C-alpha cells in the first residue's frame, strides 16, 4: 500500500517532466529535434528488454509463492540483467547524442530529452540496486516464502518504472515519428 501511494506520488514528478517535454514538442526549435536525432528502432529493442524484465520479476514473485527458491534467484538475476541491458542501451544513445554535440544545454529538445530520460534512467538504476540487494538476500537464503513484502514492494516499483518508460517512449519516440 505504502509503495502504491509512493509510486502514485512519483508519477506526478514524471508527469511534470513529460508535460514540459510536450509543451516544447510543439514549439519549433532550431537545432536537433526528436525526429532528426533519435533512433526509435534501436531504443525500441532495448525497451523490449525492460518490458521483458517486468515479466521476469513477476515470474520471480510467482516462484517465491510456490517456494521455488532456485527459480526465484534465477528470475531475479534475469531481471537485473535485462534492466542492466536497458541502461546500457540508454548509455549508448546518450553517448551517441553527446558525440553529435546534442547536450542538455543545446536547446529545449536536449534539455527536456536528457532530463526526462535521465530521471527515468536514475530510477532504473535505483531499481537495479534494490533488485541486487534482493538477489543477495535470496542467495543468503532469506525469503522463506510464500510471501515477502520486500519482493512485492520492489516488483511494484519495478513495474512502475517500466510503465513510466512505456509512456516516455511513446511520447518521445513514437509520437515524434507518428
Amino acid at each position, binding site marked *: 500500500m505504502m509503495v502504491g501511494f509512493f509510486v502514485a506520488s512519483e508519477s506526478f514528478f514524471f*508527469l511534470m517532466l513529460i508535460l514540459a517535454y510536450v509543451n516544447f514538442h510543439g514549439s519549433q526549435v532550431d537545432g536537433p529535434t526528436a525526429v532528426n536525432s533519435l533512433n526509435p528502432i534501436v531504443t525500441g529493442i532495448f525497451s523490449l528488454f525492460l518490458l521483458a524484465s517486468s515479466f521476469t520479476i513477476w515470474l520471480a514473485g510467482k516462484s517465491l509463492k510456490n517456494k521455488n527458491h532456485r527459480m526465484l534467484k534465477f528470475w531475479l538475476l534475469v531481471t537485473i540483467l535485462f534492466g542492466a541491458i536497458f541502461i546500457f542501451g540508454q548509455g549508448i544513445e546518450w553517448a551517441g547524442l553527446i558525440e553529435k554535440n546534442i547536450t542538455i544545454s543545446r536547446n529545449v529538445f536536449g534539455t527536456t530529452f536528457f532530463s526526462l530520460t535521465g530521471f527515468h534512467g536514475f530510477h532504473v538504476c535505483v531499481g537495479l540496486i534494490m533488485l541486487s540487494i534482493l538477489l543477495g538476500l535470496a542467495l543468503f537464503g532469506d525469503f522463506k516464502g510464500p510471501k515477502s513484502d520486500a519482493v512485492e514492494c520492489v516488483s511494484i516499483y519495478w513495474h512502475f518504472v517500466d510503465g513510466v518508460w512505456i509512456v516516455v517512449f511513446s511520447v518521445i519516440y513514437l509520437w515524434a515519428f507518428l
Partner: protein
Amino acid sequence: MGVFIKGEKEMSIIQLLTSSWTLEPWVLVFALVLMAGYGLATGFRFRGKTVIFSTGVIIMLLSVVSPLDYLGRHYLFSAHMAQHILLLLIVPLLLLLGIPESATQKALNIKPIGAVMKALGNPIIAWFLGVGSMWVWHMPSLHNVVLQNDDLYIAQQISFVIIGMIFWWPVFAPVEDRRLSPLASTLYLASACLGCTILGIIITFASAGLYSAYVNPADTAGILPYLRNDLCITPGVDQQIGGLTMWVPGCLIYLTASMITIAKWYASPEADELTAHSGGSVLAEAGSYKRK
C-alpha cells in the same frame, strides 16, 4: 467569457440554421432500440426511473441532431467538445441511473451478460476505457480523420455512449454489489478527472490549430464570418474553449458524482465493528453503556 459566447452562439445559430437539424436515421434507430430494450427489460411499467432513462435518451437525440452536432462537426471544436461531454458523461449516467435494479439483476443472472459485465465493470478496465476514449478520440490526427469520415463519426458517437455507461458502471451500477466502496469510487473519479484534466490542459495551452480541420473549415452554411468576426471565435479561442470545456465542466461532473457517493456513504448506517473485534464480554462489562 466562454460562457457568454456559447450562450449567444446557441441562440443566433438557431436563427441562422434552423435547417441544420441533421436527422440521420441511425440515431433514431439507436434511440428506438434503446427505448425498446428498456421497455422489454422493465416490462413497460412506468416509474420514476423511466423518466430519468428517457431524459437520457432525449438529451442524446438532441445533442446528436441539434445544430450543436453540425457546428461541432464542421465549425467549432468547442461545440464538438460540449457534445462529447454530453454523450460521454451526462447521457450514459442518466441511462444507467434509469435502469431499474431488478431488471439488471435478471440480466446479470444470464451467464454471458453477467460474465461480460464482470469483465467490463472491472474498475481498472472501465477507467482505462473511459479516460482512453477521451485521449484516443482526441489525438489530432485521428480526430481530423473522423471528421472527414461519416462511418467513423457515427462509430465515435455510439462508442461515447457505450463506453460512458461502462465507465460509470463501477460507481453507479444499478446493482449494489457491483459498485466500488465510496472512498474507492472517489479515488476512481478523482483520478479519471485528472486523466482528462491533463488532456484538457494540453489542448488549452497548446498552440492554436491543433485540430487542422477546424482552422479554416469549408463554410457550407455561410456562418463562418459571423463566428469569426462577430463572436471573435478565432481557431485559438475555439480550441481554448474546447480544452476548458473538457476540463472544467468535465471535472465538475466527476466532482459532483464523488460528492454524491460520499454523501450516500455518510447517510448509510454504521456497523458496530467493536463487538466483532474485541471480546463481547469485556464490552458487556462496560456495563451501564447500552446501545439503543
